[in-house]
């Protein structure tokens, strides 16, 4: 059955970016939020450490210092106009969340407390600065809950457990979305004057990841299949402290509170890699340092394949009150008490810097020349503004979702109120219906889970922290073979009610697209920058590569790469030392 709805604004995704957008749009026009999860299940809730803003509640600070750190942390690939917007609006964004009721930790005099975080410094790199506003080690949980509370207060309409399958585009104008109701198997056409994607990341293409099972690149996947470009897909962040074997995140806040990384000799090896800020260097650098420590035989453990996060010198009171959740993770999942012994950790796939290209008003870019897709917006991890450049600083993702979620909500409401409901093709969901029907037909005996598992291993081994022409070439060949195997798989369960086999099947298709885009873009970039490290091209090459990549799927199933200059500003590229 196909049902049709009409709204002014439709938001896909109910994490921080989607909910923040919904708060703005909902006050101004008829708004619906469509999400494949109940809103509070969104992965914003897993963010731990904090949200940076130059409040200067604890130490001297300025938004310009924050902007400098963000640009340098991003290895100068960030668009500096967007960074200025984010860091300037950060202060008001944090205060606004407090006014909405967010329970931040407090200073002795009752102000929002702040702590240190990786790559955030005073006066352009002099020393680490206390800039991260936080609520214990569950800041993301509090942001998600607070925004959900506010959306309920404002009466925002939710369609929970509806899975996006397509974007309606007519002559380049966005006219809504097609979604699959997981509870019934029905298709829904949501006609809208404006649509905003806030679908999150796609870390599930990697074997070891901090990402939820549901982070499969649905939004960017839909966009890519519609022939629209994705930006900077080669830049994927590996967080240096994922629980060994599992990838569950242990926040950088642990190091902000004094934890130290040690190799098998007990050495604080970050002193060699980043003499000034040591363990609080940006994530790409720390993950690489860990990789080389392990590669050179200084990994800890029986197989010398992990690093130890040492919290034994941190005051147990601080561990229990400011880092309670991550302490519990180590105890629950590894049976290790961080108060008493080092926690085995490895780099874990964490955050996509790349995604759907947008400008500072969250308008989606139709090409690398800056044309916009009318009525279409994106915000949060699925988008690429680009504020994070080649490597995102810790805490800047929570900031990004709040700042650009708000901007996107405002912009989409303004657009909706100025435009009529666009015409859409007759039978707009027919092709989706046919596609779904085809998933049950034919096929071999293979379970798609085998394909997914292989994809995750290939991407982890050949396209993660350290890459080469050879590893990326092999990855591409494998991904293309896996796509063929995937196409041969069929959906076995024909039921309509909560058929989560079909949703997982489609999610895997999106992941394969994301993996292909990542590998192709990474192979082309013959330099090292931020999260993209090429062992065969170890230097950053600004003369040639100070530019964003735009990858597009071509009609014949191939890919095309274009490039766009970085928007520069106050900061000229310098060597990145910490």
């Amino acid at each position: 059955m196909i049902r049709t709805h009409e709204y002014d604004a439709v938001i896909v995704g109910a994490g921080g970016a989607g909910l923040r957008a919904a708060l703005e749009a909902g006050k101004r026009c008829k708004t619906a939020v469509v999400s494949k999860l109940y809103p509070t299940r969104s992965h914003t809730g897993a963010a731990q450490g904090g949200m940076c803003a130059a409040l200067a509640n604890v130490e001297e600070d300025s938004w310009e210092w924050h902007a400098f750190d963000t640009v340098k942390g991003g290895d100068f690939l960030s668009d500096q106009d967007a960074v200025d917007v984010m860091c300037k609006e950060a202060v008001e964004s944090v205060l606004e969340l407090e006014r909405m009721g967010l329970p931040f930790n407090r200073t002795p005099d009752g102000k929002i407390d702040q702590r240190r975080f990786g790559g955030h410094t005073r006066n352009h790199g002099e020393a680490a600065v206390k800039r991260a506003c936080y609520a214990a080690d569950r800041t993301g949980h509090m942001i998600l809950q607070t925004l959900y509370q506010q959306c309920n207060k404002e009466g925002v309409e939710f369609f929970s457990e509806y899975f996006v399958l397509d974007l309606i585009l007519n002559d380049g104008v966005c006219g809504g979305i097609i979604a699959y109701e997981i509870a019934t198997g029905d298709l829904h056409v949501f006609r809208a004057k404006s649509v905003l994607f806030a679908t999150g990341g796609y870390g599930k293409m990697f074997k070891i990841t901090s990402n939820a099972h549901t982070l499969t690149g649905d939004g960017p996947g839909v966009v890519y299949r519609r022939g629209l470009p994705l930006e900077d897909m080669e830049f994927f962040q590996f967080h240096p402290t994922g629980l060994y074997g599992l990838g569950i995140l242990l926040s950088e806040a642990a190091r902000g509170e004094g934890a130290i990384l040690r190799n098998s000799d007990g050495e604080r090896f970050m002193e060699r890699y980043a003499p000034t800020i040591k363990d609080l260097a940006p994530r790409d650098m720390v993950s690489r340092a860990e990789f080389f420590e392990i590669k050179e035989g200084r990994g800890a453990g029986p197989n010398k394949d992990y690093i130890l996060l040492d919290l034994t010198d941190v005051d147990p009171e601080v561990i229990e009150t400011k880092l309670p959740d991550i302490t519990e993770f180590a105890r629950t999942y590894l049976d290790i008490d961080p108060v008493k012994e080092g926690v085995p950790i490895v780099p874990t796939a964490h955050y996509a810097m790349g995604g759907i290209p947008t400008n500072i008003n969250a308008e989606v870019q139709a090409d690398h020349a800056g044309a916009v897709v009318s009525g279409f917006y994106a915000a949060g991890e699925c988008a690429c503004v680009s504020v994070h450049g080649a490597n995102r600083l810790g805490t800047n993702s929570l900031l990004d979702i709040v700042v650009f979620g708000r901007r996107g909500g405002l912009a989409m409401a303004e657009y909706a109120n100025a435009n009529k409901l666009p015409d859409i093709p007759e039978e707009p969901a027919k092709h989706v219906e046919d596609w779904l029907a085809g998933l049950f037909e034919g096929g071999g005996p293979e379970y798609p889970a085998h394909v997914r598992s292989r994809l995750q291993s290939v991407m982890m081994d050949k396209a993660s922290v350290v890459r080469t022409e050879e590893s990326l070439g092999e990855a591409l060949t494998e991904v293309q073979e896996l796509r063929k195997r995937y196409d041969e798989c069929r959906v076995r369960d024909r039921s309509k009610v909560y058929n989560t086999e079909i949703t997982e099947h489609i999610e895997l298709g999106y992941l394969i697209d994301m993996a292909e885009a990542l590998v192709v873009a990474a192979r082309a970039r013959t330099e090292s920058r931020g999260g993209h490290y090429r062992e065969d091209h170890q230097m950053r090459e600004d003369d040639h590569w100070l530019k964003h990549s735009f990858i597009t799927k071509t009609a014949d199933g191939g890919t095309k790469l274009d490039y766009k200059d970085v928007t520069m500003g106050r900061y000229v590229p310098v060597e990145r030392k910490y």
Partner: protein
Amino acid sequence: MGMTGEDTELSSHEIDVRLRVLRFNPEKDTEPHFEDYTVKAQPMERLLDCLHKIKWYEDTSLALRRSCAHGICGSDAMVINGENALACKVLVKDLKQPITVEPIRGLPVMKDLIVDMDPFFQGYLAVKPWLITDDHEREPDRERIQSQEDRARYDDTTKCILCAACTTSCPIFWADEEYVGPAAIVNAHRFIFDSRDRGGRERLEILSQKDGAFKCRTAFNCTYACPRGIKVTKAIQEVKQAALFNRF
């Protein structure tokens, strides 16, 4: 380089894990029934990993909710060996076999381990779970000041992830679906004891009504069930006290 953490001391041997899962497909079945499965898993793996092995490699029709897989999103509350828990937060080594897995109780079963969460969220919304401020107060330019002591007063109840493990472990809730349930009261507590909130009286009035906090008979099931370690029964008692003596 071994970045994937395979074949080490920490994750070495696989054992046979036997599971009994309560299945119900509304398109075929009139009654729920148990089905038995055996999967290979390591002792340190999560129950969720075992359920995935069934779903991914044995019976793809098994329906369950899950997302983060580390106890933060609240999707996978289930009745595991008779007790409410998150499938991603209990490990194989800690479970007696065969492991019985059933949907949480007191909410309509939609399919297999998936229940209708709407009545649960309605109970939550009934207590107005958002900061209520006095319209006559000027919105501050900076943050409101809150002392560390005042912040600590409601810290425990901010941890709630709305997984429904507490509410669906409550015998009062099983018997009376109109009861708002422990999770709703926890979320009311989070605001009633927040020094910035002005909606305490409003919420206490709601919770003093017949389907409110006084239905609680302090069975403590909720406190045992909470995967976040919230002292749920204590929070409910504090709300009752506040309602009786108008002190909060």
